[in-house]
């Protein structure tokens, strides 16, 4: 029953976001602030994760490819497809669910507990539109960009690690990268990133917006938001892979 009630409240929250804007300029300003926080605020961690994931992929793929019949450039192909199809969209979004998701939940939770949301309501501002919509839109604009950056950095990290470890030469890696490339894989990764960014922004917003109590409840809501977002991202990953691949 609680789950159904939560789903109902979540849908009502989403519906409540689409109301007339009081002042477009203020909403634009808030959207830009959120884009900066979600996009640039997560760039550092995305960079680190992507480079290392690409590097580890290269080394582990090379470790498993022991047959002399398989050309060495296949390592680059495997790294490219793994990074594009799975690591960049899924792993980055799971990490972002922790970074951006917990920030969204705790920011809204703190605003709720300290009556800042009530203050906005009293002013006649639709708080769902003003506080939640810019966060979701910003996530859906910035996270696919971060995923594209993660793809490039992941592949670059793989190339760097392969060269540094003497596994594969840069020329051979580049040759492998170019062969049998399917642009559809990028489309699939971006589709996933849009779905994941919706999940990782709206779920924490829901838990933060409806928090009740004090500082302890904000922490609990934040943790719950991250856990639920991660599970839903993995579930959506499976569904999308089954449907689109």
């Amino acid at each position, binding site marked *: 029953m609680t789950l159904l009630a939560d789903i109902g409240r979540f849908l009502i929250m989403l519906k409540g976001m689409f109301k007339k804007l009081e002042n477009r300029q203020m909403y634009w300003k808030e959207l830009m602030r959120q884009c900066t926080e979600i996009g640039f605020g997560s760039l550092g961690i995305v960079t680190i994760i992507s480079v290392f994931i690409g590097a580890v992929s290269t080394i582990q793929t090379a470790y498993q490819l022991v047959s002399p019949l398989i050309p060495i450039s296949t390592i680059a192909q495997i790294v490219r497809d793994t990074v594009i199809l799975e690591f960049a969209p899924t792993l980055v979004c799971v990490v972002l669910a922790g970074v951006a998701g917990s920030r969204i939940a705790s920011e809204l939770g703190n605003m709720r507990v*300290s009556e800042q949301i*009530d*203050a906005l309501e*009293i002013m*006649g501002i639709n708080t769902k539109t003003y506080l939640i919509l810019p966060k979701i839109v910003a996530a859906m604009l910035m996270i696919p960009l971060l995923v594209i950056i993660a793809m490039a950095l992941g592949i670059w990290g793989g190339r760097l690690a392969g060269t540094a470890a003497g596994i594969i030469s840069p020329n051979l890696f580049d040759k492998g990268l170019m062969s049998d490339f399917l642009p559809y894989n990028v489309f699939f990764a971006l589709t996933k990133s849009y779905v994941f960014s919706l999940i990782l922004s709206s779920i924490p917003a829901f838990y933060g917006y409806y928090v009740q109590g004090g500082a302890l409840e904000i922490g609990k809501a934040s943790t719950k938001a991250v856990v639920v977002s991660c599970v839903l991202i993995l579930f959506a990953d499976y569904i999308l892979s089954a449907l689109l691949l």
Partner: protein
Amino acid sequence: MIEVKNIQKKFDDKVVIEEVSARMEAGRCNLIIGASGSGKTVLMKCMVGLLNPDQGSIFYNGNNFTTMESEAKTLIRKEIGMLFQGSALFDSLTVEENIMFPLNMFTQDTTGEKLKRVNAVLERVNLAGVNKKYPAELSGGMKKRVALARAVVLNPKYLFCDEPNSGLDPQTSLVIDKLIRDLTLEYQITTVINTHDMNSVMEIGDYILYMYQGKKEWEGTRKEIIFSKNQRLNDFIFASEFLRDAKDMRMLEETGKIPNERDMDQMTRP
């Protein structure tokens, strides 16, 4: 003018407010008093629309707020300013940005005009020059004054104050009370104050509604409170020996048996 008619509010099976009616006039400080858990905060939240009453109506200048469409409610809300117990200032914004926020949202004024208005209200609450500070850099009393400045920056018709003196020392409380009273008179605002600060009751209570266990127990003015025979009210207001003596003293003053030499302006002067 705000009129509350037979308001009732339940949470699950617990009745928190039962059949409360009141009439709060413009240009007066209307106080809702009562012990913790008596339902005064819930009543105020129903009045501003943060909670929906289960029964009864709230009228703003004769317009039924409880049955209004959300668009019409929004229009009324734009005429409401509210001072929250915890100030509810936006942490990420400076004092200036906090006060300018309603102006940015609802007016087409130029930045210069908005800044002029912000400085005027900051001066009005004796806080000129703190424009660039963040809420975390302010004391409790200063936060309350900034919140008050934000609440009145759009010249509201209705001002709601939820425990404006909680957590403040007696002298700062008097400053806040005086500010609220002066602003109420100056702009003829219908001010509703939720408090259990007895200084406020005796100094600015033009109309006092005493709540006891969710019901209206007593209503009247601060002068009438002195002569009230309501035992629950007297037990609540004049809880200590000192306050009972003060009440006797005030009764003598009010009946002209001894001169009243106290003046709130003098008391709040630094």
